[in-house]
């Protein structure tokens, strides 16, 4: 667009990223999250050792031992390596569960809101039922059915996420549906599918997105609780929750084996909480101009 036209006066509303970066706390959260993601993605290249290679002689070496800045776990594996791969598995677990549960939940929520006459009642009653099973119970049942393991945990967490997502999506869709542009689009003669896809969904996404980041943290926490109950990743997979729950047996003797993964979980959850908060602020219409 030419700068010669007389339109230059109104400053462009800064983009989402710019608004995020303006607040130092938000920028910090964003950078922190990106660092975690990068560390997880690059784990195979960053890790100093093979994640599966053990050396029983080094079992439980405390942090700061020669060549082992974070010490070694009970199998004598380098904690740095284990943490990098654990981060990777945990994030992957969180992502796939939130994503899978999110997609299904959002879809159901939209359908419930859009076809309020026929679908709202049935769908939301079903969601109520699902919601009334604590995630831990779902996880237990699924582990009992499919055997413990990362995929069971993901499935359980996804199922537990569906009703929450559906509620958020429905709520946000109901608000959006009351807006005139939806009515205008209908008046144009648009089909329902196009209406949902082009008008409803994009405008509900910010609320859903914010919730997703917050849910992500919860999912990681729930996953670690499931691991604690012995339903998590199977050896030799490194996953933070499983590492922490395994390490707790050495808590009094080699605390680093449990404490370091716990700090890892804490870091992820914290990062996503902060990011979610920052996003919420950045997307809050009242803070726009």
């Amino acid at each position: 667009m030419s700068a010669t036209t007389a339109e230059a006066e109104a400053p462009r509303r800064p983009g989402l990223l710019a608004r995020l970066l303006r607040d130092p706390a938000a920028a910090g959260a964003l950078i922190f999250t990106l660092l975690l993601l990068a560390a997880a993605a690059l784990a195979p290249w960053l890790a100093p050792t093979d994640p599966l290679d053990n050396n029983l002689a080094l079992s439980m070496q405390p942090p700061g031992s020669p060549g082992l800045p974070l010490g070694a776990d009970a199998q004598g594996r380098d904690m740095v390596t284990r943490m990098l791969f654990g981060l990777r598995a945990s994030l992957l677990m969180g992502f796939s569960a939130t994503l899978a549960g999110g997609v299904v939940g959002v879809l159901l929520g939209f359908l419930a809101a859009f076809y309020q006459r026929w679908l709202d009642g049935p769908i939301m009653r079903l969601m109520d039922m699902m919601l009334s099973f604590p995630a831990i119970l779902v996880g237990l049942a699924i582990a009992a059915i499919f055997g413990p393991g990362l995929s069971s945990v993901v499935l359980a967490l996804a199922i537990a996420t569906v009703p929450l997502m559906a509620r958020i999506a429905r709520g946000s869709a109901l608000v959006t549906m009351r807006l005139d542009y939806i009515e205008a689009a209908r008046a144009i003669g648009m089909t329902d599918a196009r209406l949902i896809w082009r008008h409803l969904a994009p405008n509900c996404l910010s609320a859903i997105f914010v919730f997703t980041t917050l849910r992500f943290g919860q999912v990681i926490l729930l996953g670690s609780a499931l691991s604690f109950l012995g339903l998590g990743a199977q050896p030799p997979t490194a996953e933070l929750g499983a590492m922490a729950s395994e390490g707790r047996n050495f808590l009094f003797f080699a605390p680093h084996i449990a404490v370091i993964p716990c700090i890892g979980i804490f870091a992820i959850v914290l990062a996503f909480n902060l990011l979610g908060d920052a996003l919420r602020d950045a997307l809050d219409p009242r803070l726009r101009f």
Partner: protein
Amino acid sequence: MSAPLLEVEGLARHWAVKGGTVRAVDGVSFALGRGETLALVGESGCGKSTTARLALRLIEPTAGRVRIDGTDITGLSGGAMRRMRRQAQIIFQDPYASLNPRLTVGEAIAEPLIVHGIGDAASRAARVRELLGLVGLAAWQAGRFPHEFSGGQRQRIGIARALAVQPALIICDEPVSALDVSIQAQVVNLLKDLQARLGLAYLFIAHDLAVVKHMADRVAVMYLGRIMEVADKRSLFANPRHPYTRALLSAIPQPDPRRRGMVKPLGGDVPSPLNPPPGCRFHTRCPHAEAICREVEPPDVEVAPGHRSACHFAAALPPVEALAGEGLSPIAARRLALFAERKPTQSAPSTLT
């Protein structure tokens, strides 16, 4: 003379709410010819927006029928209804909620064309430019997002979108109520210009009788889901034949301190549409109410050609004193004229800000 463009007959819509049924629209009939403006006025909650939505079948009526260009749309199937929508479009009160914040202005205006499969990408782009020009915006603004525009400009974008499919009828649901006075005048002028150029018909919904008087050819006054009085504008303002219309007229404060104290407030509040009063709906607030009003629903009578009123005493009401006052003071009028004279060309693209 062919059938009216829009014809509404016995239209009703009831909402089930907790505690009962709201009779939002309760048997409304009117007709609107090509190129004509029919204004619908009434207090908040009397069912104006509901009527507008019913007329476009954005919601399904509880009873009654709507004919557009002679076709009864109440029974049309999905596809046929979608095609019918090219005939009639709508613009809304809230300039902020009526545009999808995630579509550029160009996309928003082009969308009706895409939906109806009109033209290819290039011709649509040209049409968007044309439409923007028509409503006084610049072509380069097509790439901008709604939040970069002021309320008045957004309302213009909404109008451009409605015009895209070349409808014969536009339903304006309080298009200027949310705008500042100075901007409101711009939009009112634009609507009138467009009507003159494109031969549009408007169903113009408003609560401000002064604006209505400026815009409309005919006026329908609604109260609690019913039309109380319909008449030609001149006839209605000069000789209102329904007490409610009179009450409305005398409640409007005039921008003229010389007329101070002429405002005569009506007692009481609008009753809840949950259980409208029996008989004449207005009897609870009517200064002329008699026993019959409390029991018998007044029929719709034609008191003069084209002037109908739903009041038992429509013909018996005393004449009103002429509303036309002194108008502007001479000094003010002269200055106004000067102002208008020196204004840049009318309805030029207002690049505002």
